[in-house]
């Protein structure tokens, strides 16, 4: 098992940050998607009952 030098520590931190960013952005997209689905369901319901 080897340790990380400074360069590797930076690489590790950079990769971790990028994965965190992707996780957060995906969560945001999912939340918007759920809102959109709710809006579409409301629209369909409104059209059915019109």
């Amino acid at each position, binding site marked *: *098992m*080897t*340790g*990380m030098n400074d*360069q*590797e*520590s930076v*690489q*590790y931190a*950079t*990769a*971790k940050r*990028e*994965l*965190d*960013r*992707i*996780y*957060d*952005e*995906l*969560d*945001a*997209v*999912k*939340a*918007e*998607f*759920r*809102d*959109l*689905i709710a*809006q*579409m*369901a409301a*629209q*369909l319901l409104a*059209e059915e009952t019109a």
Partner: protein
Amino acid sequence: MGKGAGTPKPEAGKVPESDKEHASVELQQRADSLGDSLRSFEKEMDGADAMADKIKDPVKRDEFRSALATLRGRTGGLGNALRGAVAGLALFAGGVGVGKSMGDERHGAEMAELSRQAGAAEGENRILKEQLAKRESAAPAKTDQGEKAMGRALDTVTGENAALRSQLAEMAKELARFRQERDEANARVIAEKEKGIVTQDALMKQQTVSGNLSALYGKMKNLIEASGDPKLKEDADRFLAAYE
């Protein structure tokens, strides 16, 4: 818009930063989990298209379709970003137990950047296709006379760009060849990754062909944009389809 919609986000835990192997495995597991989550979400979005199609109000239906296309574009961008991150991780993991020179580090960073650029270009291509599809569906009905006049005008421009179209057709063949090479390179990296032996050679080949593919795609896109030929722009996805 609120966050926390359910994507599992495992914490890094107490992995000691001095333990490179542990750090590499931990990040790779998080990337794998994220990849699974992205694929699952993309399937979920496919189902939403059918839901939008059932909406009778054409204006609302187009609005929902547009919003879905935007979300799909963002999701595709995340997939590309993840691919770039995985390539960077492979470079990071590739040095486990192996001393690397600064030159190697710099080269590795360049390859990771190349991968990110290729991913960004893929996202652009997807957005371009969505915009073209949207434009076609939103085009107002024209009168027969107007259509004929438009057709004549387009034919003139198209004729002037016949040479360009021929060039693009040849480039499209090359694009398809690069695409095949990239798929093969990707398969090799995945196969070696499954065996736990992701090598610099496989990764370098993957990055090189991805770079070639991205560069050719960019060149073709620029030629189409610079032509000023609206018909050619509408046909862009035919020439660029091999990139997808």
